[in-house]
């Protein structure tokens, strides 16, 4: 199964993703991956350091919004590039283990500094193969 794709012509100045997962854990991991790959070429990022995220929300959409926003927060707070995430969702609470390393402009091939996760077209839905989400980011 494809992890995610970029939706063309949805956001001229920005980037829209359609994300897939056979369950919610995988959907969240693939959404995080879309963010990671938009930020840098991951072949040059190593899993040197671990970070964890714990969140609760009223519903699964808010949980995804808060999870992805938390990744952007940590990216700036710690000047950090992520490479991998491992997500466990239980009802509307989330526990995630993430890994990556500090940004090094000499070593890493940087892409876009995502400003924010937007609510434009934002959705999480059940499909016959699992789950699908649409996330538009502001760059």
């Amino acid at each position, binding site marked *: 199964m494809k992890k995610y794709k970029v939706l063309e012509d949805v956001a*001229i100045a920005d980037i829209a993703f359609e994300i897939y997962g056979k369950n919610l854990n995988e959907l969240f991991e693939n959404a995080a991956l879309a963010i990671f790959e938009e930020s840098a070429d991951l072949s040059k990022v190593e899993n040197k350091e671990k970070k964890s995220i714990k969140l609760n929300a009223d519903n699964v959409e808010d949980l995804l919004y808060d999870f992805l926003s938390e990744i952007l927060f940590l990216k700036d707070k710690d000047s950090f590039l992520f490479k991998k995430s491992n997500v466990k969702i239980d009802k509307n609470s989330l526990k995630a283990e993430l890994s990556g390393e500090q940004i090094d402009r000499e070593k890493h091939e940087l*892409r876009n500094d995502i400003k924010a996760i937007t609510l434009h077209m934002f959705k999480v839905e059940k499909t016959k193969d699992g789950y699908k989400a649409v996330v538009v980011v502001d760059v």
Partner: protein
Amino acid sequence: MEQQSGPPKELKQVSEVVWELPTSYKKGMLVPARIYGTKKLIDAMDPGVYNQVTNVACLPGIQKYSYCMPDGHWGYGFPIGGVAAFDVDTGVISPGGIGFDINCGMRLVTTNLTIKEVEPKLKELVNTFFQTVPSGVGAKGFVKINNNQFNELMVDGSKWCIENGYGWKEDLERTEGYGKIDWADPAKVSDKAKQRGIKQIGTLGSGNHYLEVQVAQAANIIDEEIAAKFGIHTPDQVVIMVHCGSRGFGHQIGTDYLRIFSGVMKKYNIPVLDRELTCAPFASDEGQDYYKAMACAANMAFANRQVILHRIREGFSKVFNRSAEAMEMHMVYDVAHNVAKVEEHDVDGKRKKVVVHRKGSTRAFPPNHPELPSIYKKTGQPVIIGGSMETGSYLLVGTEKAMEDTFGTTAHGSGRTMSRSAAKRQIRGDKLQKDMENRGIYVKSASMQGLAEEAGFAYKDINEVVETLKIAGISKPVVQLRPRANVKG
């Protein structure tokens, strides 16, 4: 709705460059929508603009019209290029009318050097600024401050920088609102936003943000008298333009309040037309909290560009072995293009306090406006419009007509017309870099992919945008500036 092509059939031409959608276009519209553009720009306008500008027209307390400037394109909630003024008592404030990058803006600095003198040093300058003005994903700046100092900076904006050695006293009066919004309250800003922004003072960011060395060729000086008053007096004079905002600090404040406002729309009976178009009554607790937090981000952005100006002066001094004072590195102006402010305007013959939202649009106050410093009282406010890194930018001046027609507002840039993925499919970053160098523009970026996404062909024709402003009379062109070297975020 965004798939249709061409303008809606209900769009009526009001004058050569002003077009209107009546309140009958969409249920709930309280005022008509006005879109500025030459026929060519209107025909090519992103269809999302018509949907969004009419959504804004439905928000409580909106005055006169919901506007979109000629550089407009689809945005979140409001279109980019959006302008809307709301009654302070009955109207709303909307984070979607400001954008995540609060007080993204432009700053222009002059030198007394000509391109002939600067040309041999362009690469050295760019390489210097690439180091001293960090750009790209997660970049950290060199200004080290503690939490208390950051709180002070949020309140004092550029003034904090001057007091701490980052700039000249005269820089303040050359900044919109003297580089400080008075109603900032750090208590309304989350700890997260503070943690995200504290290390980012003096950084450029990425996307369409840049630091550019430009030249004012003799043939491109449109209004010689005003150009001279703005400090551009010699053919081929070199100037430096900066485009950036409040970095992760503002982005986090935008994110925090988008979530807060989503929860309160129902409480205030405001219709949700688009989840990005969240708002709250301006006079409500939530509205006031956001207004105060937004001001903190705006002040951080002024400070950010002030520190960058300091780096520009340092860099030129080092490279040319002369003081910045000797090179007359005065600021022309710093103007915000993503912000909301309470201002007094005439509405239907009455003087009224309104909260003017400018999202990808620029304040353009006329001569003699009380908010202008004495140096610009006679000329009017300098307006800086940034183009793509290939095609150049403009310096304009505010007009009385802007006060009458658009709440003292004009355009902010050239506006994108092609998606990022389409742009990078057309050209690779390294090829574009080489092509530009062959044309005499030296560019360095933290991201090769980002560079390709910012190619000139991805933008509207800036001349067409400026022509619209000129015909509409909402600002007057002064100088066209050509890019020669660019540090892209």
